[in-house]
């Protein structure tokens, strides 16, 4: 009797403590989101005003504009490689080269490239400034029409990072654009992305841009004809998520110079700094975030002022996973990459030596990106237990849920609204409203999936580390495997 009383008492105490904590945690996230939204609104507005009358022709035409190496690794891309390379070669820019790194494909990717682009091996003096798997041959075209193309044939390194590094070693220009062959890149991308490098007083070391989901867009031979929001549910949620995270999150972080994610699908980098920082880490599951962190650390440790910038234009359309299976792989990998990166760079967290990244970005990543799924799960368990023991205040629970829910719908709607007010990629208002409406079901249908896969990623990280390693690293080409849901185990 007495025991019973104490337990229920304790339970109540715990319950109110927990409710309080959740409440303040949610309030903190919300105020952060509001701050980020305001920052990014100001940044986008400023960006629009400064760039509304820019005539990019002076970059396009000038012999003094910096050259750019476009690096795209390819692994078993035989089906689409020709169209994709053609479309990379039509980018609007004067001084650029396209480097395709054939990462030991087991299909006819290389043969197709050789045939289509009249390639021959050249006596390339390969300098391994970043250590990679061996490069076998370097090809160039005998046809002057393809003088911009370089094809590197290397041994499979089981990761996009390793292939990108080989591309960096071959690159001859001071800047390089890292992308995937299956990304559809808008033709003025290089012009837009190079501008931040040229117009800042402080050295810019990397620039990112918005990526969106291409699943339902009209695409012909690698050329984007019409932008249409994804029709299937899962990619549609991703589109919404991308708009929100790019436009609200990254734009604001860029404004504060705290950006650490320049997506692997599209990023323009200062080659010198990348090489000094050691290039991509092929053991990382989040090589893009990991490398920016390392570049930033290099700059901070050498006391060099720098910026990592982000432009709000949508420059790249990519195929998002359309089945749950592939999606789960992608997200599990992302979660795993996050915790891995946070562990590797734990010295950065809260360290004033690393500036904004140490004081704001990393603590934010730990508290709100990494921790959030755990809190949500414990919260769920907590409420289930309370419900079972009958000690739940249903009104309060409902109100708290509604509080988080309505806020998240509002913030997503703001992001879509911003995108629409400033850029207008979709033709019709119904497409926009259709997308907006997804925000209403997103917290119920889509968000739980993300939470689950995050936990799964962490679980893999903490337990099955060694076991899952070889298995997981094959997903270096996350996007590729989305297209072929079942990667053949024997292929690598």
């Amino acid at each position: 009797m007495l025991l019973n009383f104490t337990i229920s008492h304790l339970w109540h105490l715990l319950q109110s403590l927990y409710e309080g904590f959740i409440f303040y945690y949610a309030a903190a996230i919300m105020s952060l989101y509001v701050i980020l939204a305001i920052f990014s609104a100001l940044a986008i507005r400023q960006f629009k005003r400064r760039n509304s009358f820019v005539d990019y022709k002076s970059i396009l035409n000038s012999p003094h504009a910096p050259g750019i190496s476009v690096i795209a690794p390819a692994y078993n891309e035989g089906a689409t490689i020709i169209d994709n390379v053609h479309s990379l070669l039509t980018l609007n820019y004067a001084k650029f080269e396209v480097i395709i790194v054939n990462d030991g494909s087991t299909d006819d990717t290389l043969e197709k490239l050789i045939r289509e682009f009249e390639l021959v091996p050249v006596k390339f003096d390969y300098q391994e400034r970043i250590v990679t798997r061996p490069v076998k041959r370097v090809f160039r075209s005998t046809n002057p029409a393809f003088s911009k193309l370089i094809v590197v044939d290397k041994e499979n390194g089981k990761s996009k990072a390793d292939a990108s590094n080989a591309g960096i070693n071959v690159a001859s220009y001071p800047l390089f654009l890292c992308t995937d062959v299956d990304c559809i890149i808008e033709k003025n991308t290089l012009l837009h992305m190079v501008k931040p490098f040229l117009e800042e007083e402080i050295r810019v070391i990397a620039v990112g841009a918005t990526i969106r989901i291409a699943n339902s867009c009209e695409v012909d031979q690698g050329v984007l004809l019409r932008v249409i929001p994804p029709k299937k549910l899962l990619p549609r949620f991703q589109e919404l998520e991308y708009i929100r995270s790019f436009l609200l999150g990254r734009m604001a972080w860029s404004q504060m110079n705290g950006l650490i994610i320049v997506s692997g699908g599209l990023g323009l980098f200062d080659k010198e700094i990348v090489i000094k920082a050691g290039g991509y880490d092929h053991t990382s599951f989040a090589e893009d975030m990991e490398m920016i962190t390392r570049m930033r650390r290099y700059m901070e440790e050498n006391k060099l002022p720098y910026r990592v910038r982000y432009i709000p234009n949508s420059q790249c359309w990519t195929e998002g996973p359309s089945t749950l299976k592939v999606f789960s792989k992608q997200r599990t990998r992302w979660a795993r990459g996050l915790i891995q990166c946070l562990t590797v760079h734990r010295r950065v967290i809260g360290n004033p030596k690393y500036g904004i990244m140490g004081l704001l970005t990393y603590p934010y990543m730990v508290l709100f990106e990494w921790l959030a799924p755990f809190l949500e799960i414990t919260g769920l368990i907590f409420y289930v237990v309370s419900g079972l023991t009958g000690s739940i205040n249903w009104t309060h629970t409902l109100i708290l849920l509604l509080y988080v829910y309505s806020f998240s719908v509002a913030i997503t709607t703001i992001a879509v609204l911003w995108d629409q007010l400033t850029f207008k990629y979709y033709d019709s208002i119904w497409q926009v409203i259709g997308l907006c409406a997804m925000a209403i079901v997103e917290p119920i249908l889509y968000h739980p999936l993300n939470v689950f896969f995050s936990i799964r990623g962490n679980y893999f990280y903490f337990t099955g580390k060694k076991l899952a390693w070889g298995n997981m690293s094959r997903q270096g080409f996350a996007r590729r495997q989305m297209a072929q849901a079942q990667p053949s185990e024997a292929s690598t």
Partner: protein
Amino acid sequence: MAKKILIIEDEPVMLKTLELLFRKKGYEVVTATNGKEAMEQIRRYAPDAVITDVMMPYLPGTEIISRLRHELKNEKTPVVVISSVELDSLVEEVFALGANDFIRKPIVPAELVARVEKLLVS
């Protein structure tokens, strides 16, 4: 019979202007707004001269010339390239591929017409 000119240019205003300019001079004009369309037009109409921009979707102007000269084995149809790019390397590349003339933007309409006419005569 009027000579046929193919104009390839992805900016619609520019294309329309050039099209009407040559029409008025008494040519038959066919147009294309990208590299893919351009190749179709070349095959279908066998133009007497080609005027092309460099940066375009599907295939850049350089590749159009290359395909015309090598794939279609057409050595004689004159090709005039118009571009605003200032790089010498581009000019070299274009001539190496077999273009007959290179005109920098901004274009002087009378000059463009005269150069195309000269190529058509010779």
